[in-house]
């Protein structure tokens, strides 16, 4: 191994100026790659955070939606995950103290509403406990509730037994750090509501879905509404955060623009490094012939060529991405008009990983032709040309 490294090192510094210039070109290329891809990924982070990836599906007219729509909604293209809710409004102790319990299927609910945080143990407790309730932290503080308490929501939906009181057992607390001003609510089990209530059995207040691509949520909304247009209960699907969606559209399709530029850069870099490696191998035809003569195998010679290409590309990529990582925060500050849409102020690890991945692809492609040449190398001819 050490032998390889010292041979590679010697190869690289055979023409130091060429190696240096190539690395600088690569550095600039990867610097731009890092910035563009960084903007792209910070934008995606902002997307997820701003909840534009969610649609709310309610009844288009007064007919409530049946819970049986779940399976069909799940099939619609673009839907990543579905949950449903049944609202139970009532009061606690004093009729003036309003309480909202969102009953649902807890696992899918906390997954779709990923900004609501609770512990896996509390979530499991809610799934186990029919009358379980996970309460927003502010609400628990307001009423002085704690885990283990049994509370009753009164003056609510009439029950089959004639009362309108719904007892709940508090099994957990949830927080919503993304929205400190969140209106009070608690999360319960839909089955408890559905089987207990006197009317409207088998219907939901609304479905909440997460879409795979927030930029295509409107198409998914249209597809869902079209699927139920001729049924007894037509749906009305709307983005949860239409404002953010509009702002997003204002900035346009960032991804497509950055990809176009990145393709242009990659092409230029590919020709550059491909050529440099090719040239360096060609100049050393005789040296490779000597290596083969003294017993180096084809594979070993190939490894040497690939290692050299790898050293060039990786050095360029690391320098470029490193510089991009340093420059990125100030980019966000200087472009005030879009900085609100950059979900992160620093370059994410995924961008660095993508950059290094590109460096590896670049290595492979630029070493391919020289490797092929080096393999075909006929030792005797190569040595003869030298003389």
């Amino acid at each position, binding site marked *: 191994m050490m032998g390889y490294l010292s041979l590679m090192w010697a190869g690289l510094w055979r023409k130091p*100026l*060429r190696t240096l*210039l*190539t690395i*600088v*070109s690569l*550095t*600039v*290329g990867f*610097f*731009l790659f890092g910035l*563009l891809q960084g903007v792209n990924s910070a934008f995606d982070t902002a997307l997820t955070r701003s909840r534009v990836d969610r649609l709310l599906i309610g009844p288009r007219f007064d007919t409530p939606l049946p819970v049986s729509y779940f399976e069909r909604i799940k099939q619609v293209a673009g839907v990543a995950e579905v949950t449903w809710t049944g609202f139970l409004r009532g009061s606690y102790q004093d009729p003036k103290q309003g309480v909202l319990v969102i009953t649902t299927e807890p696992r899918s609910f906390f997954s779709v509403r990923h900004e609501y945080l609770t512990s896996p143990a509390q979530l499991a407790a809610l799934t186990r406990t029919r009358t379980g309730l996970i309460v927003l932290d502010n609400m628990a503080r307001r009423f002085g509730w704690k885990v283990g308490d049994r509370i009753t929501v009164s003056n609510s939906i009439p029950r089959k037994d004639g009362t309108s009181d719904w007892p709940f057992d508090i099994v957990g607390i949830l927080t919503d750090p993304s929205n400190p001003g969140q209106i009070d609510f608690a999360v319960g089990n839909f089955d408890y509501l559905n089987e207990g209530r006197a009317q409207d059995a088998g219907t939901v207040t609304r479905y909440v879905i997460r879409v795979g691509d*927030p*930029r*295509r*949520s*409107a*198409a998914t*909304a*249209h597809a869902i*509404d079209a699927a139920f247009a001729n049924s007894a209960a037509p749906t*009305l699907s*709307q*983005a949860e955060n*239409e404002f953010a*969606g*509009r702002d*997003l*559209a*204002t*900035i*346009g*399709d960032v991804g497509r623009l950055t990809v*176009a*530029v990145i393709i*242009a*850069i990659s*092409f*230029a870099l590919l*020709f*550059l490094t491909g*050529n*440099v490696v*090719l*040239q360096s191998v060609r100049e050393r035809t005789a040296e490779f012939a000597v290596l083969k003569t003294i017993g180096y195998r084809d594979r070993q010679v190939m490894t040497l060529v690939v290692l050299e290409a790898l050293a060039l590309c990786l050095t360029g990529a690391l320098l470029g991405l490193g510089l991009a990582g340093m420059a990125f925060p100030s980019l966000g500050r200087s472009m005030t*008009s879009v900085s609100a849409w950059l979900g992160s102020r620093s370059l994410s690890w995924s961008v660095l990983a993508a950059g290094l991945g590109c460096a590896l692809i670049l290595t492979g492609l630029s070493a391919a032709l020289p490797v092929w040449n080096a393999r075909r190398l006929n030792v005797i001819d190569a040595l003869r040309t030298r003389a």
Partner: protein
Amino acid sequence: MSRLRQMLAVTDMGLRSIPARLGTSLAVVIGVAAVVAVLVAALAVAESFAGAAAKTGDPKRAIVLNGDTEADSGFSRENALAILNSAQAVGSAEVLEFVSLVDQHSGLNAYTTIRGVGNQVLVLRPELRLVEGRMFKRGAREVIVGRAVQHRLAGLQVGSIITLPNGDWKVVGAFESGGDSHESEVLADAETLLNAYHRNEFNSVTVGLRNSDDFTRFNTSLSANPTLSVKAHREPEYFATMSKAVSELLITIAYGIGSIMALGAVFTALNTMYSAVSTRAIEIATLRAMGFGAAPVVVSVLAEALALGLLGAALGSGIAWLLLNGATMSAMTGVTPSQLTFHLVVGPMQMLIGSAFAAAIVITGGLLAAIRAAGIPVAAALRMT
């Protein structure tokens, strides 16, 4: 004279030997082409956009607002009536709302403006021509749609239904208005739209002026009215200001990315030209030994670099032109969240700027290599054989 002949001879030799160094030369050509393609494309988008935005608006119309943009502005019915009265001419008090639709081609979310207009709108905007179906009826949930937005977004054919948060509206007609920004909008009756959204504020009032001098009179009468705190703008000025921010941002991005890429390409050019010089070292030394001066050598290296750079510029411009010229794009006007649809023109001006960038890249790279070439020690180079 003989100096010039020397230059031509050396340059000719250099250029002729390019095919022998195809690989390295190609790296410069492709590198420069990438820079030029990105730069030309981005500038073309910025300028086509500004051109299309400038088309909107007639100097004989004024738009009255009490905010910076129509979306920010809002005033009462009484104020709207007072403004219309001051104009003593045709006018339309207008309301803006938004429609969420789907881009026909990409399937992406798209938003457009639904503009509630007064019943004199066709007199006020004579460029607006109904080309299909009929005008919407007052009081009905009916709309007419601009051709540009109709082509861009799905579900806007005459006869289809669009869903607004407050219910379903029917598309009854389509109009053209010379490709201005209104052609990217959906129009409906202002009063019906206000009712449907439970609103009672108008966003703007647009009035016709008898001639462009009338603007001063109109403006004075607006400021004379103590109940109004509004501002009138000539239409073309308003739309130009609104689109300026967007096109400036596009131009900044174009030059920003273009310059960084150019920096990378300078090093590629330097690399290539150094390698060209070192392969030609013996040849150059021979020429110097024969009595050729340093200047012809420098010129020949620069000429070779320039030839490669201009080839790259032509390639890059060509790619940008092939991909973009004549294509339709839509971008935000900055006026409203609806997009302005415009046709892209990749013109000679952008190609010229691209070529200037290319020339700057290769001359910077070539000059250093040329100096090195001129400084080749003759005896040492010849001994290398």
